[in-house]
């Protein structure tokens, strides 16, 4: 198993993470927001010298280093002569530093980086590769690895079709708790790309997409059940597709990241499923969903599910059975109650 593990982006985090280096194949982290930026939020903006120090430290410990430059929108800047020059300069510096792989979402960057530099180009999950045709397209552009769109994590027919269509490495993002077929996905990642990309950055007080996402799940926790996360226990069912897994969560504490690393490395977690999900992290203080209560469900139901939810109702029933809500959280009276005892059905 190859585990790609997030780092918040500074050397102290990396040192803590690599205390368990035997479980980690590669670290990944964002680069500076001043060039290509990333499609997700970040805690750090490491400069080239910071990246160099961290890459050397990772390599000294036998762990690879991956830089994530997966902005989903650069406003066309990448296509201007100045944008091309600046981005190329930045990539050249990263390659000189010894970065092992670079994750990008834009097909243009996949093609130009794989053509012009001696570095592995990884297609980001934000390129939404959800079909064998898209996978072939990116492989032909020069991709060495593709992170498959997590929306199809439970579509085994598509996963197998992608595996059969390309020779490059495939990665699965295992702990993203985003809404299945999330309607906010494009707008949200584009927003992040500008908020965590080069100036000018939007000065936004509240992230509508995130808050709306939480609101929907508070109204209906079935949406958490249906999110395309992969439990540690279920990795074995993906072995004939890939053994390369990516853990999301570069804005979390190292302790949280290592808890995920241990869960996926050991392929078992006896706790709240919400502890493992990168997003929506705010809801881990609302819901207790025993991870083990999903034992066998992927094999029994989801592997062959047609995803016609209004005719099925399986996840609705399952959610009522397993989801608990924290009541009186943070006090001596704290307890977990079945979701139905608090929610009024609409």
């Amino acid at each position, binding site marked *: 198993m190859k585990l790609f593990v997030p780092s918040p982006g500074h050397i102290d985090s990396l040192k803590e993470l690599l205390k368990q280096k035997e479980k980690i194949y590669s670290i990944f982290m964002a680069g500076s927001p001043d060039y290509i930026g990333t499609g997700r939020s970040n805690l750090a903006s490491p400069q080239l010298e910071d990246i160099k120090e961290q890459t050397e430290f990772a390599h000294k410990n036998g762990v690879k280093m991956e830089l994530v430059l997966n902005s989903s929108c650069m406003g066309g800047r990448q296509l201007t002569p100045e944008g091309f020059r600046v981005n190329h300069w930045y990539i050249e510096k990263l390659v000189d530093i010894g970065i092992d792989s670079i994750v990008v979402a834009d097909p243009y960057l996949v093609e130009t980086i794989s053509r012009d530099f001696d570095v592995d180009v990884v297609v980001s999950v934000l390129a939404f590769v959800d079909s064998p045709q898209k996978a072939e397209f990116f492989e032909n552009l020069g991709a060495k690895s593709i992170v498959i769109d997590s929306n199809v994590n439970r579509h085994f027919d598509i996963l197998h079709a992608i595996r059969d269509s390309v020779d490059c490495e495939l990665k699965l993002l295992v702990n993203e708790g985003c809404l299945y077929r999330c309607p906010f996905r494009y707008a949200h990642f584009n927003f992040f790309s500008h908020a965590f990309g080069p100036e000018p950055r939007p000065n936004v007080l509240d992230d509508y997409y995130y808050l709306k996402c939480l609101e929907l799940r508070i109204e209906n926790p079935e949406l958490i059940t249906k999110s395309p996360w992969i439990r540690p226990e279920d990795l074995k069912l993906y072995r004939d597709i890939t053994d390369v897994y990516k853990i999301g969560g570069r804005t979390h504490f190292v302790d949280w990241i290592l808890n995920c690393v241990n869960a996926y490395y050991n392929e078992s977690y006896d706790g709240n499923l919400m502890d493992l999900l990168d997003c929506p992290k705010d809801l881990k203080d609302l819901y207790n969903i025993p991870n083990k209560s999903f034992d066998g469900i992927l094999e029994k139901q989801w592997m062959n599910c047609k995803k016609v939810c209004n005719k099925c109702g399986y996840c609705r029933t399952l959610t009522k059975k397993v989801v608990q809500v924290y009541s009186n959280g943070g*006090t001596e009276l704290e307890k977990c109650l079945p979701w139905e005892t608090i929610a009024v059905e609409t």
Partner: protein
Amino acid sequence: MGNNSGGNMITEEILKNRADFEDKTRKLIGRPVLLIELDIFALPCGCAGITANMRGLEVDDLEVFEPQILQLVKEMAARFEIKPTVTFARLVPGSSIVASLNWRTLCMRCYPEFARGEGKMPRPDLYMLQFERRK
């Protein structure tokens, strides 16, 4: 999760009030809304008050349960001995999302900003629940 007050009376009181407000709001609207952070604040201008950062609360809930929510706010404010001159919800502009409930004792400088506005929404991101005009 879990009680981590360490026996300190003030933190115990804040934790208890957070849980109590969340519980009563859930019972009121029939949904497990989350009071994700309860803050007691003081600003350099002289304003002071309480902010309840909510998740899952919507403008519709305020419209339907305004008197009851206002009562809950008043009860908590009284427990912390804060006399709010203004109580408002902060919205994500243009959406149904209530980001927070705020009750604030306004300073002399900030009072005119609130006093000038009229109606329930003096700004696209504010939904007024109560405002005490000076005579």
